[in-house]
């Protein structure tokens, strides 16, 4: 699956490692269970660590590890399963996670703008054609009603700004 990071096609440097397998050198992705079980040992490792976090597990459990994690993947098993939108906002807006936040699963161009607004900055796109369409997809809307952690100006900001003359 092609990976788009910060708006551009990027190589995926992370290797997913199954539970019980030894960790190779270089950036790795481990399961949530492994991170929670071996956390202290993992985060002193000299190498980037990422975690594949399922969408039915409270992201508050990640708090002790956040400053050492380079990547969190959040899952969209189906387009219509939207739990990870809430998880992403909590990670960014409440727990202050600054590393890469990657959407994986049934990720289509039709969702990427909402994902950006929720805090995602990396997208494992399911369809190759969506890579080219990515730039256009995140520009589908220029008007936003909700304040989120991406700090785009909202309609309310525009309406109540001192300079606004109204429409």
């Amino acid at each position, binding site marked *: 699956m092609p990976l788009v990071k910060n708006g551009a096609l990027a190589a995926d440097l992370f290797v997913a490692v199954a539970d019980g397998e030894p960790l190779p050198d270089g950036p790795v992705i481990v399961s949530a269970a492994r991170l929670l079980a071996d956390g202290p040992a993992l985060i002193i490792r000299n190498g980037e660590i990422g975690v594949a976090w399922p969408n039915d597990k409270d992201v508050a459990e990640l708090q002790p590890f956040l400053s050492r994690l380079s990547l969190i993947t959040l899952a969209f098993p189906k387009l219509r399963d939207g739990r990870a939108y809430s998880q992403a906002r909590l990670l960014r807006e409440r727990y202050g996670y600054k590393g890469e936040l990657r959407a994986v699963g049934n990720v289509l161009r039709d969702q990427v703008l*909402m994902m950006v607004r929720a805090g995602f900055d990396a997208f494992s796109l399911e369809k190759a054609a969506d890579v080219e369409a990515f730039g256009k997809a995140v520009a589908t809307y220029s008007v936003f*009603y909700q304040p989120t952690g991406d700090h785009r100006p909202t*309609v309310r900001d525009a*309406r109540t700004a001192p300079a606004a003359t109204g429409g």
Partner: protein
Amino acid sequence: MYVYDEFDRTFLQERVAEFRDQVARRLSGELNEEEFKPLRLMNGVYLQLHAYMLRVCIPYGTLSSQQLRALGAVARKYDRGYGHFTTRQNIQFNWIKLNELPDAMADLAKVGIHGLQTSGNCIRNTTTDPWAGAAADEVEDPRLYAEVIRQWSTLHPEFTYLPRKFKIAITAAKHDRAAIRVHDIGLRLHKRDGETGFEVMVGGGLGRSPFIGKTIKDFLPKEHLLSYLEAVLRTYNLGGRRDNIYKARIKIQVHEMGAEAFAKKVEAEWAEIRDGALKLDEAALDAIRDRFQIPDLEALDDQPAELASALATDDAFARWHANSVAPHKAKGHAIVTLSLKPVGAPPGDATADQMDAIADLADQYAYGEIRVAHEQNLTFPYVRQKDLPALWAKLKAIGVATPNVGLLTDIISCPGLDYCSLANTRSIPIAQKLTERFADEARIADIGRLHVNISGCINACGHHHVGHIGILGVEKKDEEFFQITLGGKGNSKARIGELIGPAVAESEIVDVVESLVDTYLNLRTSPAETFVAAVERLGIEPFKERAYAPR
């Protein structure tokens, strides 16, 4: 009504463009049906038995005459010349072609309406009192808050792929005309110590597991409305069930957790965000309040001579006036309900010609504003009392002055098997037969207030659980049968009706309803005791006995 500003208009244009692209990708096969489905649903597009159906959002049921004409034009150009007003204050068109949908949406967007979020597992159209802004018994106009919620919920980046659909209703009046206790969230605007706030109810809903909403907050100061809603929605999005579509509504989460535990979880989430960017200060409210055009009502006296003389001389007018005209908060004015329930016709339908004519009458007599009520009727919220006789004559001429509002033949019905792919039975023909049996206007007036609700399957789109008489279609060995419940109520004292016994055959349903009504007429203490009050006093036994007695 609220008038869109440049931001609202730009947003809508962008929505039309996005959907046009999605339809093109579906037609080219780039999107498969499973992927396209949630996207089309969020634009109000269903695939029904015979065709695609488009459900157009009428935000909190408020339409301008210009918008109503645009709906008429869509009915004429893309459909078969009529539309169907729904119990959620929306309108649906039943015969739209997929490739023409983007054009229909573009036509509607020109007047500021769209199919946005009328379906799909997102926050749906927020509904409210059709008499908002005109009712004598309201604390404040609830449409301001309905509009605040509309904007917040429009393409919300976190809450667009919820476990299931999500419906919010709001009322500010003493009498609940928005059925707030049978919504995912019900909001009751009230005042405490001079401050305005909301009682918040969650987990109400009908469908196959009916629940009455439970109050989780008695008084939420208005500035916290959005942060509190966001806390409820987040609790639901993360914790609502996704393993079973029939257990995915918030009512099941609230029921399984218990309302108290649910409230606690919401409270904890809310504590984290209550003082954040969602807080509504007066400037934010004013920016929206200022976009509401409130008609400048003439200073008039109650009971003008024109009205008094028509009431004294014309019995038919007097009957309609007693039935369809309600008191207004402004002197010399009235609220008029237009019945979309004529004898023998499908409840809630209006033709394109009727829509045009109603729009013209709204301009002439009602300050250009029309409301859709959840009972599937239309309302003129601002009419001069002196104009009532002339208006009545014109409404009558186009078939929308049947004096049956709130009476037996003001039936709420789902589309049923005539259109819907989920239905077990037809509903519209039952409604039509009932209106024919009870066509006598004097008779239904004597019977008094009586709500009949018909659903063609257990999904309960006709709200049969809260009908004084509820009728639910069930299939038995390929034949249509109907279960009957009694004593349901959708208002502030909401309760679920009680099943009276085995389902009856389609050929008997009208006779059974008639015998229930006759039982009431025999047993009521006086005409002041309504049908539902009699059911509450007597219980279902005497009704049951008569309903199943050999005829």
